[in-house]
């Protein structure tokens, strides 16, 4: 457990994206996103103070659990596009592959590219395979992505007080 506290958060490069540690300079973008209704699929809306707590908690999650969320940058211009990774707070039935993109980053296949890389890394490095994703029933874009990733609905769950579908991803190692 002590080891995870010291290890830096790994950096992954895909064809068009860099998955890297959340950092202080992400705060204004994250705060603005969490003040919008768009954030309702990922625990929002949240105040600026809650966004600060959320950002620092994302980093601490790696230290506490040994895995966590990456922030996604465009390799072309360094633009901060969203996040992807594995999270497992109390109330989650098991570790979840989670993702979200800002509105301007949608429709380019970035979430698919990022989720593929994160899922493969989770299987190899965290030994977490056949992950779930919690998706709200009205979040059709995320449901479509889950399907494209080869996941299927396994059942219903409750997350942060909201009913959602539990999607199960195929094993990377299969």
């Amino acid at each position, binding site marked *: *457990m*002590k080891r*995870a*506290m010291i290890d830096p958060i790994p950096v992954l490069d895909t064809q068009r994206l860099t998955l890297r*540690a*959340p*950092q*202080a300079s992400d705060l204004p973008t994250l705060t603005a996103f969490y003040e919008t209704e768009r954030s309702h699929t990922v625990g929002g809306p949240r*105040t600026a*103070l809650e966004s*600060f*707590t*959320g*950002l*620092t*908690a*994302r*980093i*601490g*999650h790696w*230290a*506490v*659990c040994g895995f966590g969320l990456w922030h996604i940058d465009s390799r072309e211009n360094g633009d901060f596009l969203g996040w992807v990774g594995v999270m497992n*707070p*109390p*109330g989650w039935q098991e570790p979840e592959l989670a993702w979200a993109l800002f509105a301007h980053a949608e429709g380019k296949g970035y979430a698919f590219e990022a989720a593929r890389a994160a899922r493969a890394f989770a299987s190899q490095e965290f030994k977490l395979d056949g992950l779930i994703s919690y998706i709200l029933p009205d979040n059709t874009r995320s449901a479509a992505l889950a399907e494209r990733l080869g996941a299927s609905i396994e059942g219903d769950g409750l997350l*942060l007080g909201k009913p959602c579908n539990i999607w199960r991803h195929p094993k990377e190692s299969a």
Partner: protein
Amino acid sequence: MTAPGDQLTTERLILRRPQACDLPVYSAYCMSERSKYVGGPYDAQKAFEKYCAMAGHWTIRGFGRYIITWEGRAIGHVGPLQIDDTIPPEFTWTLWDGTCEGQGFATEAARCVQHHLMQDCGWPEMVIRILPDNAKSRKIAEAVGARLTDEPAPAWYEGALTYRLGGHA
């Protein structure tokens, strides 16, 4: 300015950065009535997030809250928190378990961190926010030399008193 150390030692206590093994005892505190002065009690999910945030704060700011350990046991936290980097860091302390009160642990830990930050590291100023009816914490603020101001409470901590350490009187 010198960067704050990862670990400090007092006569009876070791103050160190958060470790994953502290989470259960911190969560028990957060989910208990003892967290009422800081917006609690919280549920398990919120306690987890707050603990992760305490660990991640060190990475983002290069300083943060120390875990107070006594005879190898984590009993509380003490140290600076900076949400808004346009105002001085807020100095905070908490003992997680009531049975550890009354022995001067919080004062001993707060004195050590205050001295380290302001003498060794050259920090000019910190603020302290305390609810008026939290008499024990107010005594500790006074013991470390903080002065009560008439500054209004921040929006996120309604009714709190503001003390200051350092800066201009």
